[in-house]
């Protein structure tokens, strides 16, 4: 008893001693980037690929260019485990790490984004939600601090409906067809509901929405329902282990995989490789191209990976999510560069970075210059439109790799824009926000 008590006291003292030197100041004079990442848990494999790409690009900017116009980058990653309350804790921790703030936060989770929506404006920290997050935040007059860059869930959902219509031979053929939305039961999975309901009314297909509880590694009952219902198509709104489980359960139940379409979070190698041969034929929307055949990937290989600066496994390089993480980092860096053009070459505060994102313009020429080529579509942000082109490209898993089966295309943008404005206006009324553009 006595020794154990000493052990307890010892442990507590050790913990206190360790806790003391927490506020490691970030190197002065650098642009500090706070990263709320995750590499653990049922979503860890996906998160690890994304954040490895993100950090590898930051390494590249430091190693090759010596930072952004001479301002080096520094960063810290905090593990959220895709858990909302942990995400809030990480956000609060990262925002204290540097005097200028954490540049811009990529929550990489729709749930964490929702939890930060009220905090970010109060702290003057922009949130970049690349292809996820709260869809109506596209309206920057109501959500000045949120940037759902590239595309959003409603563009994705309407794009998927359009793709299904193409496969069926035109929108008219969709009438009386049955479509199931198999979704991750979280804010992420519920985000496309309103737009799919609107589409179902407009085009006349029957829609049934079936939730899969977190983490989604057990879907027997959902697929029994699907087998009973006999849908023509299943839209998979999955993340982490859920997607691979959907594919293998579909195989067990005898549902054809080439009647299944995933969104871009359910369309990476991690999902299909885990499902093995069950994945062959599966379609997925994509936000960015996979592959290593881009100059920027070769640069990262040369300046970062070959020099041993990064711990990214070779297999991850060039994967869908790794490339997406790199693109996310590129947009952050370019936003800081844009901000530096107005505010001077120094570490920028969140407010200044916000201006930089709102005036971000990465056109095709600039993409080529940066070595991204056609990996992502060009993007131009404005106050009224915090999103992007909304372009999406469909790909099919042939058993070994993703093959593009469509060109860059967009869904029903007019419908999406109208719903975004209605929803944002409703939010503004509820919150007492006067929609306006911030000047600086």
């Amino acid at each position, binding site marked *: 008893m006595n020794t154990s008590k000493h052990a307890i006291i010892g442990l507590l003292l050790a913990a206190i001693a360790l806790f003391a030197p927490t506020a490691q100041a970030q190197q002065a004079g650098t642009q500090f980037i706070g990263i709320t990442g995750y*590499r653990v848990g049922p979503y860890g494999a996906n998160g690890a690929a994304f954040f490895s790409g993100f950090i590898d690009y930051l390494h590249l900017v430091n190693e090759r260019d010596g930072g952004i116009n001479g301002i080096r980058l520094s960063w810290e990653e905090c593990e959220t485990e895709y858990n909302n309350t942990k995400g809030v804790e990480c956000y609060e921790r990262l925002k204290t790490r540097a005097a200028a703030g954490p540049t811009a936060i990529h929550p990489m989770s729709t749930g964490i984004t929702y939890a930060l*929506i009220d905090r970010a404006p109060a702290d003057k920290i922009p949130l970049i939600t690349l292809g996820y997050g709260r869809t109506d935040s596209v309206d920057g007059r109501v959500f000045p601090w949120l940037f759902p860059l590239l595309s959003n869930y409603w563009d994705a959902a309407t794009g998927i409906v359009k793709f299904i219509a193409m496969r069926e031979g035109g929108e008219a053929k969709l009438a009386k067809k049955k479509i199931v939305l198999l979704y991750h039961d*979280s804010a992420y999975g519920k985000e496309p509901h309103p737009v799919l309901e609107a589409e179902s009314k407009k085009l006349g297909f029957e829609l049934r929405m079936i939730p899969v509880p977190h983490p989604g590694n057990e879907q027997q009952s959902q697929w029994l329902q699907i087998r009973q219902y006999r849908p023509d198509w299943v839209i998979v709104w999955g993340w982490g282990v859920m997607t691979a489980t959907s594919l293998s359960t579909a195989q067990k139940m005898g549902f054809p995989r080439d009647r299944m379409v995933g969104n871009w979070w359910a369309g990476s190698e991690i999902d299909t490789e885990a499902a093995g041969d069950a994945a062959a034929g599966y379609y997925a929307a994509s936000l960015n191209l996979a592959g290593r055949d881009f100059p920027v990937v070769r640069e990262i290989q040369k300046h970062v990976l070959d020099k041993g600066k990064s711990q990214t496994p070779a297999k991850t390089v060039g994967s869908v999510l790794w490339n997406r993480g790199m693109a996310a980092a590129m947009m952050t860096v370019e936003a800081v560069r844009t901000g530096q053009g107005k505010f001077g070459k120094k570490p920028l505060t969140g407010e200044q970075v916000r201006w930089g994102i709102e005036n971000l313009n990465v056109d095709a020429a600039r993409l080529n210059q940066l070595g991204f080529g056609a990996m992502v579509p060009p993007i131009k942000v404005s106050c009224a439109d915090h999103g992007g082109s909304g372009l999406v490209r469909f790909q099919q898993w042939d058993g070994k790799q993703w093959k593009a089966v469509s060109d860059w295309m967009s869904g029903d943008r007019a419908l999406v824009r109208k719903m975004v404005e209605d929803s944002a206006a409703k939010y503004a009324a509820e919150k007492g926000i006067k929609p306006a553009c911030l000047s600086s």
Partner: protein
Amino acid sequence: MLYREAGQFKTTYAADQQLFPIRQDRVAVLALLAVAYVAVPLLAADYWFNAILIPFLVFALAAIGLNILTGYAGQLSLGSAAFMAVGAVAAYNLELRVPGLPLLVSFALAGVCAAFVGVLFGLPSLRIKGFYLAVATLAAQFFIPWLLVKVGWFSNYSASGVITAQPMAILGYVFDQPVERYLLVLTIVALLALAAKNMVRSAVGRSWMAVRDMDVAAQVIGIPIVRTKLTAFAVSSFYCGVAGALYAYAYVGTVQPEDLNLDLSFRILFMVIIGGIGSILGSFLGAAFITLLPILLEVGLHAAAGQFGLNLMPGTTSMVQLLVFGGLIIFFLIVEPYGLARLWQVTKEKLRLWPFPH
């Protein structure tokens, strides 16, 4: 030497029955409150309020709620997080749909709503006990979040089912700074903890304990079993409901029903078990252990890695943290199965004799 009650004579019944009969305890509690109210707001940074102190207080309140039910009345429940969700959603809807309703009133009514739901799910406790009752409350844990998502009215037809809490305003004063939110939560939690401490010493609390220790015997001596069990469910759920409202308004700012899941219910149960079953102090100790230790470990591991010049992957620290955390729970349960509160009790006994133990 310092902690000795020799010479403190009780000359009235009131003095004998007071909450903290030993003078040193009274001084310590007042000092603790003074630190919490004066020193902490002056010294702590925003991070401490937002990420450490407010969640600690909110979960301590939920743990008190569960402790009343499980620790004092002996009814095992796995539905605490669901009752928190009821409280959070009720507070949101009351603020949204009843214009001009004072915030504190809607918190209290949110607690009442949760109490009502708690009584409903407590009804099976009249017939079943122990693990079987745990399964019945498990039904609450699955049913309530499902219902809150299924019926759009609860979230005011929000597209993603996420509720965003309105700003907290009392008499026109908006509590938006972290320190203000902390003080509001601290006041509510302190008052409710005081109420709980008194309740468990009252006739109600004694009948809970009688039912816990042996319900047949309790019935024989004339304690109404039905009323006793249902009041325990009502009071417990009231506390959880208020904790849920504070979780929504003061801590996260949003409610995603899937956050208030079985996992959280288990964590609240662990707080009660590790802190001390049947102890209000234990609820605070357990909440501190469960909410603060992971953060402490994470920060500590990073600091240690920095000292030795190791470059840890963020994922690694998270894994190590899980291992250490699990190990510590087992360690504590072996060394002190009655929880941290019991450890404090033992320390108190020893202090009385110190420095001359026989």
